[in-house]
């Protein structure tokens, strides 16, 4: 087909299908509106609140600019033809007007950019202001779980747990982040932006949680096969509840108090489990895997992979690779009764 003559226009087809297009393009917007409030826009910490309002400001302003550019582009091409048809004959007045308008728009772009940079700096300055003392929690990223340690005044008072981080509401918390293998990144959308955990380095992150609640977080930096199953849970409690929790966590595991738990305990110590896991108060002192002293007090299993239930524990112990392919934990050959008693024992580790 040769180029259509200048007068000829083929718009009817577009006009006919415009309603369909409108509906199709409205679908994502409508669906978006129907969703729950996205976690990043549902802040529960001063930091996340500041960032959420930054997101709204940027989105509002930039969205308007986008709309203006889109509308002007469409208007530009559907305006009545002005001036002579010869491509090299241009009306000088039109060119002057264009120069003025484009000049103003470029200046406006620069102003908007400077303004937004200023807003960003202000938020950044407040986010990373001088360090305050606070509860120190050391988080070490592993493929694919989080080792969590609450520093104490002596080594025996260090509390070690995994994947579930309890914090007191309103009290400043200092997270020290490290990694043992590859780079991970901690992210809790309602509470804080990302901070990488890098082997051989320590990053520090300050955090204050404003409201009680359970907040989902996860690894955000691709870290290998099970990056998808590397969740963490932030549990924000009233300060008194938190202190009670910390005391309970500091205690060694309770001795098994029922026959099946006792045989589970024995099986646990007899099997390779102890090579990697520690249960304080027993000879099991492995350091490669999560500390299991208060395993059953946690809400999830396998870094957020499964809920902490009897069935999930049985599935995890008997066939971890069926649940989370590639996980470091090997399958442990157990007879039916052994499995039952071991699950009973693990369930008692409150």
């Amino acid at each position, binding site marked *: 087909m040769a180029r259509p003559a200048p007068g000829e226009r083929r718009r009817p087809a577009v006009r006919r299908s415009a309603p369909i297009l409108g509906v199709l393009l409205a679908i994502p917007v409508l669906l*978006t509106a129907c969703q729950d409030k996205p976690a990043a826009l549902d802040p529960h910490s001063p930091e996340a609140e500041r960032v959420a309002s930054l997101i709204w400001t940027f989105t509002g302003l930039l969205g308007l600019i986008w709309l203006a550019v889109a509308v002007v582009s469409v208007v530009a091409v559907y305006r009545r033809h002005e001036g002579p048809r010869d491509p090299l004959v*241009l009306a000088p007045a039109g060119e002057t007007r264009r120069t003025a308008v*484009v000049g103003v728009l470029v200046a406006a772009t620069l102003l908007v950019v400077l303004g937004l940079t200023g807003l960003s700096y202000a938020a950044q300055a407040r986010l990373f202001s001088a360090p305050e003392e606070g509860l120190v929690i050391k988080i070490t990223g592993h493929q694919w779980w989080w080792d969590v340690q609450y520093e104490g005044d002596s080594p025996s008072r260090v509390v070690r747990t995994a994947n579930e981080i309890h914090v007191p509401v309103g009290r400043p918390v200092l997270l020290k982040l490290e990694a043992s293998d590859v780079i991970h990144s901690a992210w809790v959308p309602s509470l804080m932006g990302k901070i990488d955990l890098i082997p051989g380095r320590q990053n520090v992150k300050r955090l204050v949680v404003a409201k009680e609640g359970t907040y989902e977080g996860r690894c955000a930096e691709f870290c290998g096969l099970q990056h998808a199953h590397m969740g963490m849970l932030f549990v924000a409690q009233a300060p008194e509840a938190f202190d009670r929790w910390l005391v309970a966590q500091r205690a060694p595991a309770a001795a098994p108090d029922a026959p099946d738990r006792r045989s589970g305990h024995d099986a646990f110590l007899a099997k390779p489990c102890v090579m990697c896991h520690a249960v304080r108060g027993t000879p099991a002192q492995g350091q490669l895997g999560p500390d299991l002293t208060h395993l059953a007090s946690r809400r999830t299993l396998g870094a957020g992979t499964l809920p902490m239930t009897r069935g999930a524990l049985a599935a995890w112990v008997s066939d971890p690779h069926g649940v989370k392919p590639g996980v470091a934990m090997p399958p442990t050959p157990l007879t039916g009764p052994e499995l039952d008693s071991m699950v009973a024992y693990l369930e008692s580790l409150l």
Partner: protein
Amino acid sequence: MSEAVHPGASPVPVERAAAREASGETRTQRDTDLPDAELDRRLARTWGRPAGLVGWLSSVDHKEVGWRYFVTAMVFLALAGSAAMAMRAQLARPDAGLIGPDLYNQIFTMHGTTMMFLFAVPVMQAFGVYLVPLMVGARCIAFPRLAAFSFWVYLFGGLMLWIAFLLNAAPDVGWFAYTPLSGPQFSPGKRSDIWAQMITFTEVSSLAVAVSVIVTVFKHRAPGMTLDRIPLAVWAMLVTSFVVIFAMPAVMLASTMLILDRLVSTQFFNHEAGGDQLLWQHLFWFFGHPEVYIIFLPATGFVSSIVVAFAQRPAFGYLPLVLALVATAFLSFGLWVHHMFATGLPQLGASFFTASSMLIAVPSGIQIFCWIATLWGRRPAMATPMLFVMGFLVIFVMGGMTGVMVASVPLDLQVHDTYFVVAHFHYVLIGGAVFPLLGAFYFWYPKFTGRMMSERLGRWNFWLAFVGFNLTFFVMHVLGLMGMPRRVYTYPSDSGWGPLNMVSSIGSVMLAASFGLFFVNALWSLRRGVRAPSNPWNAGTLEWALPSPPPAYNFARIPIVTHHEPLWKERESLPVAHGLAVDEREILVSTLVEARPDLREVVPGSSIWPLISAIALSIAFVASIFSPYAALWGGALVGAALLGWFWPKSSHEDEE
């Protein structure tokens, strides 16, 4: 093209030079006195290539090489697109078991790697190889054998990657392959090596093409094409080529260091031995951010060409448009750290990169405003290329807006490595590069093939792509804010991410269908399309003066350029220069700034050696994945091939 001497043109130096030589003792036949038909016949014989398979493999014609680049890049587009569809199928529902983590990680790595290294950059260079010589009025690209060589290297690198995928040995560490995950300890086997070596292949090839393009633009422009008469699309390719030359070595260095770490136990990225794993990120993103502009800048050239042709007026703001290209190129090297805000950098350093990242909105804004000002009140015909330009404006500007958002440190920490960023860079790359690319394909297809693409299918193609694209990617912004990280092979059903992922997957089917239509249209039009006149869009740049498709020698007589839209200025016939030889591949070398005719030079013709050298190089590269000694004997192999390539010949080349 008819022969005429522009009344106002000053005496042409080439002609004088030719006359001087003609008076002396020379057998060389020159074009001065030959009638058109005889000239075409002789030039076709000189510039043609031998028939048969060997002749086909020996071709150094930039149009054939460029076309091969296109076709190959499009095949890789289809493959990487299929990988994307597989991911969308897996992610459509929560807890889906269609694809396991091992395969999924390979697939998203293949998708990103192929799209960036084997599709986006090569397809832009394909346009450069094909169009730049035509647009500057040259008979061939500079270093034609080098261009042919780089195509083969690119092809073999891509083949190696996809054969590895078929053998279940594809890389699975993402397209930016962060250490230490990609290092010897956490990625045993050969997967990461294959990724790193694929980088070496494609970078060698990109660098070679960049050199060819730069020299073509600097030294092979037609007489009279001063710097301010260079078409904007050529400026874009020129600036891009410089970015390639400064950015690509960083990633080649990084990937070589990675291979050394893996193969001969150097410790560049091992912090325990004094190395630094973050060094990888700096090197990679020092390349990786300019890479985005390597893909985007040529697309701005396409947009300029299409906008000018459809507005039927010269570009408004030629100088600002060129300066915006140059400014973008410079700024692109000062942004890399905004990919690393979460690594715990000093805040002052990070904030510098906020400013530089936001600042790049200014040259982009200049370009957008100038294009709109060019179109304003010109009532362009809404044919398919123009539709894609409109789609580009709407989508790319939204990507630019989210780009401003991720430049802000606090904001970026919230959306970094989530689907928000996935949405952002697809808006920028598909909106900013693929839409203009498809538009450019519709625009120049008649020049490539001599036929028009179907306008009806073109409209379907555009609207499906536009709607499908927005359905697929708009919802990803929200998914990111909801907390969905990148690169997860599945997600739990209680996350609430299911419905939007389903919408995205449905949209991706539409997007895939639009590409299906594009391929159907391109293939169908090859045989059945309406025959195209030489200048179907009444555009003003030199390539439209040629028959479609252009003959092997491009211009029977070298045009003299008197305006930046020469075909609009010289409506009836172009002034031409005389005096080039017709019985050997003689071209005109001009001066850098003013494009005055400077020298006549004979360029090398068809040769099988670029292919043989590329094969030797590929053997060396692939073997050095497995043994460090391959670098030694492979080097000897490549040296032998190059000896063959550069073996002195007793031809006119030397006598002149």
